[in-house]
C-alpha cells in the first residue's frame, strides 16, 4: 500500500522541486477542469433543426477569431522572486512523520551514534531550528521540503566534527594562556555533505550556548554585489553592508548567549557580555567599558558605518579570557581562493584575501588570530571555477616550480586540519534509505536488492542517493 504516500506528496504547497522527473502531479480526475470545453449557454438553443437556411448563411460569414482572454498575473514586487527562490521550507505536513531521537549536545563526539538518523530539536522544545535558520544554515538544495521535520544523518565525519567541539570544551591542548583553538576544513566530492556537517556543528554549538558566527555562502563576498571601500590603515577592503547583515544574523541567532541567559551569575561568560574595554565605533561613536555587547551590536545593525568596528569588537571580546566559546563557520571556501569581482581604482582585480571579511576568517583559519576558546570551520565547495592553488594546498602538495599557483592560498589555510568527507558507508546509507522509505519518498518497498542498486548507482554519495531514491523508474 503505497498509494496514500503518493497521494500526499504531490500536494505539498509552495515547494520548488529539485527533481523535475521525481513526482507527478496526481489529481482525482484525469481531465483538467481548465482544459474542458465550456458549457453551452442555455439561452440559445441550436437553430439548425429549425432553420437550416439560416444556419448556412451564418456559416458562410467570415469567421472572426476570438481573442483569448488574457489573465494578467499579479506582478512580482521588488525582491519577491528572490525571496521565493531562497525560501526554505523545513516541514511538510504531507510527508509521513518518522519518530527519531533528537540530536542533543550529549552526542558530541559519540562514536556509537554514528550511522543513525537524528531529528533536529523540535520547535516546541527549543528555538534551535529558528536560530539555525537565522544563520542561513539550511540551504535550498538540501531537500528539506520532502520531509515532515528536519533530520540529519550522524556520520563518522560528524564524530570528527564533534571531536573538535569536544576538545575545545574540555580545553585539551590549551596553551599557557589557556587559549584553545581548533581549525578544520571539510573537504570532499560534490554532494558529499560538507554543508550538512557545518549545520550539525552549528546545531551543537547553539545548544551549548556558544557564540556562532556563520558566513553561509562566501560567494556573496566576492561577486561584487555589495558595497566595498578601502580602509586606509589596514589596506583592506571593507564590506560594510554585508557586515551589517552578518551582525544581524549573529544577533538573531545568539540572542540568548549575548544576554547572558543560561549562565550562572558567577560564570565569567556572563561577565563577558559586558564589554571589558572601550572601542571606537566609526569616526565619532565610542562604546565604554561595561556596555552590553548586545547593545553594541544592536546599534551597529542600524548603522552600516559602525558595523565593521562592532564586528571587530565582538571578535576582540571573544578572544579574552572568560568569554564564551565561539564557532566561526564559512561555507564555500573555494570562492575566496580566487580573485574577486571587485576592482580597485587602478582597475586591477582585488584579491579575495584583501577583502576584510575573508581576510579575517582566514586569519582565524590559519591561526594568526584566535578566540579564547573556539572552533573555526570551513567547507569547500564543488560549484566553483578551478581553484588549483587551493586544491594543491588541501592535498598538501609541495610547490611545483612549473605550476603558477597563487602563493597566498597555501599559507592562508596552513595548519588547519583537513577532514575528508567521504562517501557514505553501507550502514550509513541504509539508515538514510530507511528514513527515506519511512517518510514516503520511495515508490516501491525497499529490499536489499533495491538498496544495493541505489547504493551502487549513487556510489554512496548522499546527494545522488536521494536523487536515486526519489526517481520513479518508468
Amino acid at each position, binding site marked *: 500500500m503505497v498509494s496514500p504516500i503518493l497521494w500526499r506528496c504531490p500536494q505539498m504547497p509552495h515547494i520548488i522541486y529539485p527533481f523535475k522527473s521525481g513526482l507527478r502531479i496526481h489529481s482525482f480526475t484525469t481531465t483538467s477542469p481548465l482544459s474542458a470545453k465550456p458549457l453551452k449557454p442555455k439561452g440559445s438553443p441550436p437553430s439548425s433543426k429549425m432553420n437550416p437556411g439560416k444556419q448556412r448563411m451564418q456559416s458562410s460569414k467570415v469567421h472572426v477569431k476570438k481573442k483569448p482572454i488574457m489573465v494578467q498575473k499579479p506582478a512580482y514586487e521588488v525582491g519577491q522572486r528572490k525571496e521565493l527562490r531562497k525560501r526554505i521550507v523545513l516541514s511538510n505536513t504531507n510527508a509521513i512523520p518518522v519518530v527519531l531521537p533528537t540530536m542533543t549536545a550529549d552526542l558530541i563526539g559519540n562514536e556509537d551514534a554514528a550511522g543513525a538518523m537524528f531529528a533536529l530539536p523540535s520547535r516546541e522544545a527549543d528555538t534551535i531550528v529558528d536560530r539555525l535558520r537565522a544563520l542561513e544554515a539550511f540551504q535550498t538544495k538540501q531537500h528539506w521540503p520532502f520531509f515532515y521535520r528536519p533530520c540529519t544523518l550522524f556520520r563518522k565525519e560528524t564524530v570528527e566534527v564533534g571531536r573538535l567541539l569536544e576538545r575545545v570544551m574540555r580545553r585539551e591542548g590549551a596553551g599557557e594562556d589557556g587559549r584553545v583553538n581548533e581549525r578544520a576544513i571539510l573537504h570532499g*566530492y560534490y554532494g558529499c555533505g560538507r554543508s550538512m556537517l557545518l549545520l550539525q556543528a552549528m546545531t551543537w554549538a547553539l545548544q551549548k550556548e556558544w557564540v556562532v558566527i556563520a558566513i553561509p555562502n562566501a560567494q556573496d563576498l566576492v561577486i561584487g554585489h555589495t558595497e566595498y571601500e578601502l580602509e586606509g590603515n589596514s589596506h583592506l577592503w571593507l564590506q560594510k553592508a554585508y557586515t551589517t547583515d552578518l551582525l544581524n544574523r549573529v544577533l538573531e541567532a545568539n540572542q540568548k548567549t549575548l544576554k547572558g541567559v543560561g549562565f550562572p551569575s558567577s560564570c565569567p561568560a556572563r561577565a563577558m557580555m559586558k564589554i571589558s574595554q572601550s572601542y571606537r565605533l566609526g569616526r565619532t561613536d565610542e562604546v565604554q567599558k561595561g556596555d552590553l555587547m548586545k547593545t553594541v551590536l544592536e546599534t551597529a545593525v542600524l548603522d552600516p558605518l559602525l558595523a565593521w568596528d562592532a564586528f571587530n569588537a565582538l571578535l576582540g571580546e571573544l578572544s579574552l579570557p572568560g568569554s564564551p566559546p565561539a564557532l566561526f563557520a564559512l561555507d564555500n571556501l573555494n570562492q575566496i581562493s580566487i580573485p574577486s569581482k571587485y576592482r580597485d581604482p587602478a582597475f586591477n582585480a582585488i584579491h579575495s584575501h584583501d577583502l576584510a571579511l575573508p581576510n579575517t576568517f582566514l586569519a582565524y583559519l590559519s591561526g594568526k588570530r584566535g578566540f579564547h576558546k573556539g572552533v573555526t570551520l570551513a567547507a569547500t565547495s564543488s560549484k566553483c571555477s578551478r581553484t588549483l592553488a587551493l586544491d594543491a594546498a588541501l592535498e598538501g602538495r609541495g610547490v611545483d616550480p612549473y605550476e603558477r599557483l597563487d602563493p597566498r592560498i597555501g599559507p592562508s589555510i596552513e595548519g588547519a586540519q583537513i577532514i575528508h568527507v567521504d*562517501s557514505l558507508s553501507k550502514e550509513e546509507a541504509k539508515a538514510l534509505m530507511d528514513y527515506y522509505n519511512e517518510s514516503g519518498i520511495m515508490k516501491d518497498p525497499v529490499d536489499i536488492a533495491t538498496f*544495493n*542498486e541505489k*547504493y*551502487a*548507482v549513487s*556510489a*554512496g554519495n548522499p546527494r*545522488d542517493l536521494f536523487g536515486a531514491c526519489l526517481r520513479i523508474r518508468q
Partner: protein
Amino acid sequence: MAATGTFLQRCHRTLTETYRLTPQLTSHLPRKPFHPHRPRPLTTAPASTTLMTSFSQPLPEVAPRTRLTPLSPSYYTGSPEYYDNLLALQDLLRSHEALPTIHGDEAPEVQWKTMDEYRLIIGDRVKPSRYNKVIRILDRLNRIDPAIMPAETKAALALYTRPENPELKRRVERTVDNFGRAYAIGRRKTAIARVFLVEGEGQALVNGLPIIKKFSRMHDRESVLWPLIVTNRVDKYNVFAVVKGGGKTGQAEACTLAIARALRIHEPALKHALREAGCVTVDHRQVERKKPGHLKARKMPTWVKR
C-alpha cells in the same frame, strides 16, 4: 520416405542443372523421355517438323495443347535457379513449421556455405539480400528441436553446411583466469573499455579512480553498472576497468558492454537476462564523417539564389 524424395529431387534439379545455357521448356505433348542434361532449343519445332516432314505417314493424334510451358514455375523471374531453390526451402519450412523449436542460442552451431559457395551451387550471381533470405530460412530450420528433427530436414541442411574445420573455428572459449578474473573488452563510439571482473563486495574502480570521481553524472554510473544491476549482482563482483578514448558517455557504455561480457564468463546462464537488458548487443555506430560542401555530415549551407 516420400517427402524426403520430393525435396531432394527438387534440390537435385536446382543444384545439378546449373550449366544449362538456355531455358528449358516443356510441352504437354506426349514426348520422348526427357534427358535433363541435354540442352533443348527454344523452339516449337518438334511438333511442326513431324507435321511437315512426314506427309506420307498418317497424321498423328491431335495434341490437346500445343503451347509449351516452362519446366520451372520460376522461369520468368529472371533467376529461376535461385527461386526454385528458395521455393523448395520455403515448402520444407512450411511443412515443418509446427514442430517445436529451441532458442537460437542453444541451437547446434553450424556454418552455412558462404555467399560465394552458394553462388557456385546456383550458378548465377545471387544478391546478398537473396542469399540472406535463404540463410534466414536455414537458421529457422536449424532451430527445430534436434531430438525430433525429420531426416528430410537434416539431409537438406547438410547440403548447405560447410565442412567443419576446427582450425577455422572463430570463437575462443574465454574462462576465468587463475586469479579469478574474467577479462573482456567493450567498445562504444570511440571508447574502448577493458574490464577485469572478480568476485567481491561491489567496488568499482575505473582507471584507478573510484567510479564517482570518474563519472560524476549519475546516469553514466548507472550505465556502467547496468549489467550488474539487472542481474542483481551489484554486491557480488568487483569491477576494475581501464577505459580510453571517447567521451564520458562512450566510455560508460563501453564499460557496460565489457562488464556484460565479463559477467557472462563468470555466469554463462545470465546470457538471456543480459540480452533482454540490452547489454550484449554491440552498438557499432560511429560519428558520420563531415563532407566537403556540407556544414556537418548532412547539413548544407542555406541555399542562396545568387
